[in-house]
């Protein structure tokens, strides 16, 4: 199994959850600091809108705080958290028509996008990188929701299959099959850019 990207020990998480359940906001902030980025990026890749991703991340962490008292096992926190985030994506995003706006289009519209520092300087490299980013984003976006969520959680969030099964509420065998099919579809979308052809 792969290591989780959230840098938090189970003992520390258990302690934070226990304190936050008793109303300690500082402990809840520790939990937020450990998981907010993962949740934001999961939602962003599902809805393709940074603003809506931030909005839904905010909603997720408010509801998680309110419902923290109902969490019985602290080691199930991460699947529980992502299940809430996923529910927000499905409940709220489906009410709106699909926007179909890529990161590049947002850039053109001049809307502010928080992003990582880009160390690429060469214009050709930059152009190629932008193109590859668009191809990768389109490959993810073109996946059906069922495959997209498991692809994001497995390939980009590096979650174990068992946790993914808990988040999406499907069997482990079904999730394993969906992840494989999602990877095949993604490969089909990016095959023009691969050195090793299938």
């Amino acid at each position, binding site marked *: 199994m792969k290591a989780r990207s959230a840098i938090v020990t189970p003992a520390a998480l258990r302690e934070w959850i226990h304190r936050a359940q008793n109303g300690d906001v500082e402990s809840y902030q520790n939990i937020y600091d450990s998981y907010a*980025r993962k949740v934001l990026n999961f939602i962003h890749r599902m809805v393709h809108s940074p603003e809506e991703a931030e909005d839904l991340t905010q909603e997720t962490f408010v509801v998680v705080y309110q419902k*923290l008292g109902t969490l019985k096992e602290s080691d199930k926190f991460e699947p529980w958290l992502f299940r809430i985030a996923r529910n927000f994506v499905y409940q709220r995003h489906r009410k709106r028509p699909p926007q179909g706006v890529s990161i590049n289009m947002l850039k053109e519209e001049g809307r502010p996008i928080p992003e990582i520092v880009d160390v690429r300087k060469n214009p050709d490299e930059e152009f190629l990188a932008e193109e590859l980013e668009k191809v*990768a984003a389109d490959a993810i976006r073109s996946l059906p929701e069922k495959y997209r969520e498991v692809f994001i959680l497995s390939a980009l969030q590096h979650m174990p299959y068992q946790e993914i099964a808990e988040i999406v509420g499907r069997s482990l065998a079904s999730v394993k099959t969906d992840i494989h099919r999602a990877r095949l579809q993604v490969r089909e979308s990016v095959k023009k850019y691969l050195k*090793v052809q299938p």
Partner: protein
Amino acid sequence: MKCKDCLDNLTAYTDRELSFEEEARVASHLKSCRSCAQELKSLEEATAMVQSNTRELEIRPQLWLAVSNRISTESPRLPVFYWFVKAASIPALVVALTLLIGYLTYDHIRKRDLDDYISQYMKYRETVFKMQNVNAFGSNPFMGIKPGPDANPFQSEAR
């Protein structure tokens, strides 16, 4: 292992999600099957390409401010049964204590009444016993005398 079984497990193999035995079987097949090995490489390359070219959003400080503003006015909600138990605990304790005191009082009174009854009953029995003894030993002068054959004038007629 057949190629189809190997291909179905390739993604789980790259994600290290197979059991030790399954992983060994896939690895062994990949060593001997060029086509499946090629398929594995292209799948890994495609996934790596998407991973390395996917932009990550950073968390803005305003997001926590918005969350903390909304949660600062309330405590986490505990399960409904917790509040039910908490809300019902004091009245339930009062009722339980009242019932206990009531039962102990009732039991005490019942025992006292029973003692009184037994005591009165014993006195009554003693009185009855004394009266029976008096009747048996002398106070009735006709006690022990059997009626004679002529005592009943109709008895002889019947005979």
